[in-house]
């Protein structure tokens, strides 16, 4: 008897993603990335707020792979870094849907928050 569950195909089962996986998914929305590229993109996307070490990075990658949200692609060399062969990752179809859903959720959140925020926070005179 296997206890492992089949990866869900329901976007709602994954949204909202925790911060680290969320930023990894958002980084992969830009295209394929290897580990260090992901780490760098996450920092850039979050203005340096989200920093992760190798353990957190690959722990999240492992989880996202198990959930079927990302997949490994063909390994290759990144000429901008060095001559080491690296594993690259990309979003799966369901991963792309989850990413889109997260972007929409965050956009709605910002929009509604802005409508309720005092004008001084939006550059007005209040």
């Amino acid at each position, binding site marked *: 008897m296997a*206890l492992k569950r089949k990866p869900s195909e329901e976007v709602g089962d994954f949204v909202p993603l925790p911060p680290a*996986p969320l930023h990894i998914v958002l980084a992969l929305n830009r295209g394929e990335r290897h*580990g*260090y590229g992901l780490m*760098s993109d996450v920092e850039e996307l979050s203005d340096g707020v989200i920093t992760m070490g190798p*353990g*957190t990075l690959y722990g999240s990658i492992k989880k996202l792979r198990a959930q079927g949200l990302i997949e490994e692609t063909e390994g290759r060399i990144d000429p901008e*870094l060095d001559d080491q062969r690296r594993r690259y990752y990309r979003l799966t179809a369901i991963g792309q849907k989850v990413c889109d859903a997260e972007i929409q959720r965050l956009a709605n959140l910002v929009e509604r928050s802005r409508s309720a925020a005092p004008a001084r926070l939006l550059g007005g005179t209040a």
Partner: protein
Amino acid sequence: MTATAPASTTSEPTPRSLRMYERLLLLYPRSFRQEYSDDMVQVFGDLITHRADGRLGRVWPRVFGDLATSATRQRIAQLSGGAGGGRAGGWILVALIALAGLTLVMGSSADLLILFPVTVLLFLPALGLGLIWSATITWRTTGARPVARVLGGIACFVPAVVVPLASGDDWGWWIGVAIVLGLIIGLGCGAIWGLVTLFQSRTSETPARRSWAAVGLVVAAVVVLGSMAGAGFNSYLNSRPPPGDHSPGNASAQSRALWDAAHTGDLTVVIASIEACADPFVHFDDGGRARSNAEFKAGQEGGEPVDEPMLGTYLEIIDRLLVAEDEWSQRCNS
């Protein structure tokens, strides 16, 4: 596609720092290392090369913090059924059983008669739930080998076999204790499983799964706390001195001293304490039988032999002390 690394000055990672990081990766479960250790070392090297600005001190604090949190998370993930349960999972199971045993020790003296409603309505159903969880956590903890799973399941109920065998003549009562022990072990394991599920739910689990884990944790917490409260209440009842005036010179002072002696669990202390009394309430005949003062004076036979190292004997002595105390009071009042 290339990384958008905020590279500053570059510095090559020293072989020593790479070797040290490789060793630290032993903190992670084997299955995780096999899958990602090379990549992690590679990223660590990238960090030093592109972020350290020539100073390792800028990278290591970040790496240590990351190690502490992510290695713990991976170990717990392994415990809850991740790939490669294996030996580490077995040790964790042993720790869980020890934890559950501690719970039993703290709660075993709970007076189930006093807590009868709680016992029927909450304690036993929750223990049954714990039993089910026990099977689940055992299954998940011991990894992919069926034999290990079976052995792990049996391990939860080893006490149910060992305890009655080691308990001598009073095996009937101890079988009941052993069954409760097995159930409480299951409860402890179930509580840990609930924690693990909640911990993991931060990253992956569905709301329904989180809710069930939360409910299970609450039940486990209530049962454990209830058991401890029962034990504390029972302990309080047992530690109360006999009623009466315990001031020095009064008969109850001797009674209290004997009561305390009885609670040492050492029969020789009890007898020595009784025999030290100027006017002992209890007398011992040549056969080691205890008799109250009235029985002694009337020449009646005593009760249970006092060389039987059982709690019942101590309680018998206490009862006789109380009877004798009444007799003493009546004599003083007359």
